[in-house]
């Protein structure tokens, strides 16, 4: 670890507070209010839009192979998708 200990703890604290605020944000504000229909309709796409964004680089450009496409990983991903769907 090249970062010094105080630096590390400043970063941990900053990330911790910021992450909690992001997570609490709308859940904290909205509480009992009903969201408009169009907003709810858009939010139905949260899972299917965010998850592939996380998955894609991990499947197609794995860091452990220095970003080189790996057929075995691709096949494993395809099988999981086929079973899960």
């Amino acid at each position, binding site marked *: 670890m090249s970062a010094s200990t105080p630096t590390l703890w400043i970063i941990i604290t900053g*990330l911790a507070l910021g992450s909690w605020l*992001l997570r609490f944000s709308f859940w904290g504000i909205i509480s009992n209010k009903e969201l408009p229909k169009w907003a709810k309709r858009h939010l139905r796409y949260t899972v*299917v839009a*965010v998850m*592939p964004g996380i998955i894609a680089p991990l499947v197609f450009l794995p860091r452990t192979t220095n970003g080189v496409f790996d057929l075995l990983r691709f096949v494993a991903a395809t099988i999981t998708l086929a*079973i899960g769907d």
Partner: protein
Amino acid sequence: MYLTSVAFLLAVIAGAAQFTALSLMLDQMPIIVVIIVGLTVNLRMALYSTTLATHLGAAPFRTRALLAYSILDHSFALAYTKHQENPEMTLSQKLSFYFGTTGLVGAIWIVGTGIGAWVGTRIPDWLALDFAIPIAFIALAAPALRIMPQVSAALTGLCYPLHSQKSPWSGPDCCIQCSSSARHRTGTPLGG
């Protein structure tokens, strides 16, 4: 060393943000840059927060403040799918389900982080443990793909990061096609 790892996890509890922050720290980036970029990776949590609010918004303030700490990709996806499939669930049932998923994922994650920091590089590469992450995410997202607009949204989500990394695997054409088809289709009434 492994106590620091577990403390880092307990405080931040967000894998992708932690990985990003760590690699920026190793590159000797300024503190503020590390924090801002790390939080940018976590921006999706605000979206999760809004989505959960539509189902669990009526929970008391303290419950929300506590449960917000544990919004994870996994627990969010599981709870969201459950809520969509069972709209008749009461608030307390939804909260119990959410707490059950997030508690289990969180507990395994904390223990796993401790073991990982302790065992460290002695885990052989050929096990390809890194690939457990995308496999888990695919398993979470696949059941949510019900209707065409969701598939289009997923394809757009898939193309965008690849394109932005200037990979040979997708050109701008792919993204434009997917997003225009998503935009076109979301205009139609939804069945799911």
